[in-house]
């Protein structure tokens, strides 16, 4: 009896030791979820769940080689005007769509996910509302299910790959390469820019707008003059199709702003950078702030909030443009890193 008890106790102790060793080893091997590598690992797991939920035809449609031209196939235009590739939400089952939404929740921050959902809801408003129909919005080309997912490269915790999600007024291009990631280029846009859902007013790009007007109106006359461009900017300068171009920066240098104004400027930039998972956004914020002397803020148009005005934040590794399309109710924006669009820098390493 004693002998059997001893054997059982020793076996149990050995198993406990093995379990503890395994757990410690796993903890050492698994990067923390709030690190870039940890977030990438979670996104890979969620992407694999999407692939598992799709059938063979869906898997064939969603997957592209990393070095294919697919990564540059995005636009602000609705799909009948611009043909996207990948799997389209409307063609999927509820369970498959659910897996994609879960993937977006992991890949994006909470605020970023809400922003993306609000942009999609805006397109649903275009499709269904009487105001949308009055503006020609009724039709199969609009709606919250007219969005596409594609994996450019195989979801991996080490090799580079890009998660593409987009449709009308939305392009999220999140490239990950092990412990590094970039969301450039991406295009969040909105039309209508303000609408009501279940009694709640939704403004997908409202914070971007309001924070920028607050900054331009915080500047004194001399700074104001430096920031204002003397011409109308009718559209994005570096929107879809403008990869690889770097325009001469204009406006006021961030280093000429007060500390409070600089904080406002970075807070505006965070509206775009913070769409991505927090683990990706924080190091990116640190990086753009390191280019204070070479970052510029430029403004075109009226400075009374509620008006249609263009602004641009540009630094050596950053371009953000906000461009109303003749009206405050139709906004295009772009976010780029001229040194690292599509992970050009991190995918090489």
């Amino acid at each position, binding site marked *: 009896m004693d002998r059997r008890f001893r054997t059982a106790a020793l076996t149990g102790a050995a198993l406990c030791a093995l379990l503890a060793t395994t757990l410690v080893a796993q903890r050492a091997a698994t990067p923390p979820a709030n690190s870039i590598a940890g977030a990438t690992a979670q996104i890979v797991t969620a992407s694999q769940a999407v692939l598992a939920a799709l059938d063979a035809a869906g898997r064939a449609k969603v997957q592209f080689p990393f070095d294919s031209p697919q990564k540059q196939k995005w636009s602000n*235009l609705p799909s009948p*005007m611009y043909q996207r590739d990948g799997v389209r939400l409307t063609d999927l089952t509820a369970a498959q769509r659910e897996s994609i939404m879960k993937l977006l929740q992991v890949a994006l921050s909470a605020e970023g996910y809400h922003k993306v959902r609000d942009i999609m809801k805006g397109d649903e408003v275009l499709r269904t509302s009487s105001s949308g129909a009055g503006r020609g919005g009724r*039709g199969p*080309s609009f709606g919250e299910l007219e969005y596409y997912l594609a994996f450019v490269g195989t979801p991996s915790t080490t090799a580079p790959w890009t998660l593409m999600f987009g449709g009308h007024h939305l392009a999220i291009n999140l490239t990950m390469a092990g412990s590094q990631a970039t969301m450039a280029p991406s295009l969040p846009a909105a039309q209508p820019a303000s609408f009501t859902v279940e009694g709640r007013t939704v403004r997908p790009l409202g914070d971007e707008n309001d924070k920028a007007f607050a900054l331009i109106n915080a500047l004194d006359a001399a700074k104001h003059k430096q920031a204002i461009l003397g*011409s*109308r900017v*009718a559209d994005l300068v570096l929107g879809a*199709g403008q990869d690889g171009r*770097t*325009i001469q920066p204009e406006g006021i240098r961030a280093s000429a702003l007060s500390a409070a104004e600089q904080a406002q400027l970075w807070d505006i930039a965070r509206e775009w950078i913070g769409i991505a998972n927090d683990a990706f956004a924080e190091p990116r914020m640190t990086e753009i702030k390191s280019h204070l002397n070479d970052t510029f803020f430029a403004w075109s148009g009226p400075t009374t909030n509620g008006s249609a005005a263009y602004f641009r934040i540009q630094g050596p590794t950053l371009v953000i443009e906000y461009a109303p399309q003749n009206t405050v109710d139709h906004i295009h924006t772009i976010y780029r890193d001229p040194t690292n669009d599509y992970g050009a820098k991190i995918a090489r390493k």
Partner: protein
Amino acid sequence: MRASKTLTLALAAVATIAASVGVSAHRMDEYLQAARFGIDPDRVELQLDLTPGVAIIDSIVREIDRNNDGTISSIERDAYVGAVLVDLSLSLDGRALRLDPAASTFPDVDALRRGEGVIQLRATAPLSHVANGVHSLAFKNMHRRNLSVYLANALVPSDDRVAINAQHRDEAQSDLTIEYTLRGNRAPAKPLWPLGLFAAMAALSVVLIRPLLN
């Protein structure tokens, strides 16, 4: 008969797109002309992207597809590039420059009619005997002024002898003046002597420390 049928189909396509998209879509009734300038010490390159809205595409396609056969031949493409370039003017310090076509890409007519197509032109102007110092490059775009909205920008120069000082535009951005400075010499390359000194010190350290370790 064939031309009539093509025209009917084209009008139907435009009507369908316009009905489904309406003003909710993008720049329906305007011709977006986005110009960018790359300045080198010995030449200027113009990149011009032309994006016609679907509501005005008929008039633009008529200008390009002159025989109305639904395709854009190389002759028609060259003719349109020439017609656009005639409407542009470029000068350096008040002296007129000639823009020579360098390359162009045209989407097919169907893509243009869908509102997806962008016509891309590149043209260059040689600069000879430009002295070091400050210069003024002036551009004026008068192409289809009744329909167009314009963007005009200098690109960051790829040659470090060129530095953009300022850009001045009219309200519509159909006129752009770029003030830039041309320097005679390239910026000196980063000196390599610190690297060499470090390598020499490392080698010396190895030589001095090795006997102590034995």
